[in-house]
């Protein structure tokens, strides 16, 4: 429906305040959801929520960035920018998921990790990093869905998963278009150009092999939230079943090794003059011959 939109159009849609946020997905898709609070260390972060509930017949642990629908809510939610205690709550719930062998579903929607003084004091970097390693090694299935704004490390911190799904108008970027424009052109107003050049749309990410599926929005999500959420739920369920099938037939070790191989394989570089594309797909070498590089190191565990 929105195929003709440019990157900046999609940035606007991804940020639309009326767009369904994590709790909208959770309330519609997760039965008897109980939100669980706190990192048991310092605080309870309202920008990163988590809990437990029933997703289509199985108990799951759910994590999500939560933006507000209005200013008052956004202040309470810190505009969806988690502080270290948010990531540490997520880590606690990931450990709980592992303990009880529950799949993890995450809903990604954040402009960035909080850049405040308190967050620095309490180790924002450490908190994100601990989540990355925990999710990379967790022995339960995980499906991450980018439902709005996938902002840099703040988004990455709860999106290490066996599948990364993206809503059609969601974005996922190494830096906000505004920040990128400031760096490249010393001018935040160049954000639309930066959005284009950064290749941050769902279709771009799918093309790069980073997103596993683009979930089409009936129209833009905020115009038909319920239909969008159900489509997302169907996609999540389909991928979760697929991952559960992998565990049933090949075991959890295979799943964890496959997850690692995926991340191990991300990146493109040239070695001895040849373009190497990991992920097992094909690229065009500078000398004009197509080739696939062997993945001798991938999944070497």
């Amino acid at each position, binding site marked *: 429906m929105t195929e003709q939109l440019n990157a900046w159009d999609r940035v606007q849609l991804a940020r639309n305040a009326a767009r369904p946020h994590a709790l909208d997905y959770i309330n519609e898709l997760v039965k008897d959801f109980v939100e669980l609070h706190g990192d048991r260390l310092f605080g309870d972060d309202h920008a990163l929520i988590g809990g437990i509930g029933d997703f289509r017949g199985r108990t799951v642990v759910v994590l999500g960035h939560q933006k507000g629908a209005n200013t008052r809510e956004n202040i309470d939610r810190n505009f969806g920018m988690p502080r270290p205690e948010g990531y540490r709550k997520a880590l606690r719930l990931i450990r709980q998921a592992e303990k009880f062998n529950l799949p993890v579903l995450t809903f990604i929607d954040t402009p960035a*990790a909080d*850049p*405040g*003084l308190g*967050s*620095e*004091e*309490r*180790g*924002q*970097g*450490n908190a*994100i*990093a*601990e989540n*990355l*390693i925990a999710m*990379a*090694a967790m022995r339960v299935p995980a499906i991450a869905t980018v439902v709005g704004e996938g902002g*840099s*490390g703040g988004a*990455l*911190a709860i999106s*290490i998963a066996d599948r990364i799904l993206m809503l059609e108008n969601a974005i*996922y*970027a*190494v*830096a906000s278009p505004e920040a*990128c424009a400031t*760096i*490249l*052109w010393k001018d935040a107003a160049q954000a639309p150009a930066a959005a284009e*050049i*950064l*290749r*941050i749309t769902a279709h*771009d*990410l799918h093309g*790069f092999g*980073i997103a596993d599926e683009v979930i089409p929005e009936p129209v833009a999500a905020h115009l038909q939230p319920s239909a969008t959420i159900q489509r997302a739920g169907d996609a999540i369920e389909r991928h979760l079943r697929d991952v559960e099938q992998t565990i049933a037939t090949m075991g959890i070790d295979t799943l964890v090794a496959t997850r*690692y191989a995926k*991340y*191990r394989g*991300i*990146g*493109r*570089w*040239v*070695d*001895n003059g040849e*373009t*190497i594309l990991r992920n097992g797909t094909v690229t065009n070498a500078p000398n004009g011959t197509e080739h696939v590089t062997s993945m001798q*190191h991938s999944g*070497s*565990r």
Partner: protein
Amino acid sequence: MRELFRRQPKFSPTAPGDETRSIPDDLWIKCPKCNELQYSKDAERNLYVCPRCGHHARLSAAQRIDTLVDEGTFIEYDAGLTQSDPLEFVANGEAYRAKAASAGRKTHTNDALVCGTASICGQPVSLAVTEFGFMGASMGSVYGEKLVRAIERAIEGRLGLVTVSSSGGARMHESMFSLMQMAKTTAALAHLGDARLPHLSLLTDPCFGGVTASYATVADVIVAEPGAIIGFAGPRVIEQVTRQKLPEGFQTAEFLLEHGMIDLVVPRAQLPERIGTLLRHFAVQPEPAKSDDADITRSAEPAEALHD
């Protein structure tokens, strides 16, 4: 300032151009903190630490390796990896490829990370050192791949891993491929941990962004140099967002120590001994079947390496 420190290192990483510059011994170097002047020769002897105020100047990868590892033990690997430019990135009329090539000529490296094996106070290690002069040591695909290979080299050779990091942030020019290196490198460390091999992370000035939010803070011991500025968000970003002036000493190594984020602040001159001691404490006996391969300098084909 950094440029003034450049010299022909004892270890010379391979670089595209492979041009060498000779720097006169009688060059004056000014401390950016207290303005103290010293001869470049004296500065080298002082490990580029100001004798007056103790300011630790930034080092190139080559200088870092020289000041940290046992002389003549460094062997570089994967020096041939360079950028692939998956986005065909051009901004302000400058192509990523051209920018990287220029950085390569300046720094004598192909990207922002130099990896290899060495020994530190007799302890064999797999080593990864950032080159801040190469596009602010931003973490792109080459950086990530080289680091993961260094981790794999540690696992294969039963070596401790020592990373030395400074970074200005993400490699914008590789966009999401850059962000994903955070996940890739950190995930690889899970395997190092499973192998019960230590990761010692040395944070040096300046260290920000994706690096501090990934592999560099997932370490058994985190060490920083005195006065190094380290954080997730950069000071300017924080001031801009919070409209607060940052307190004196914010994001220094000493600040991080006080806030529980790092284990140790160690002056540059003491780093080899301290890291060597830690490696010795953590040293895991080579697995029985591999115990004769413990001499890591013979265990695999090194890439081109130059010793003086």
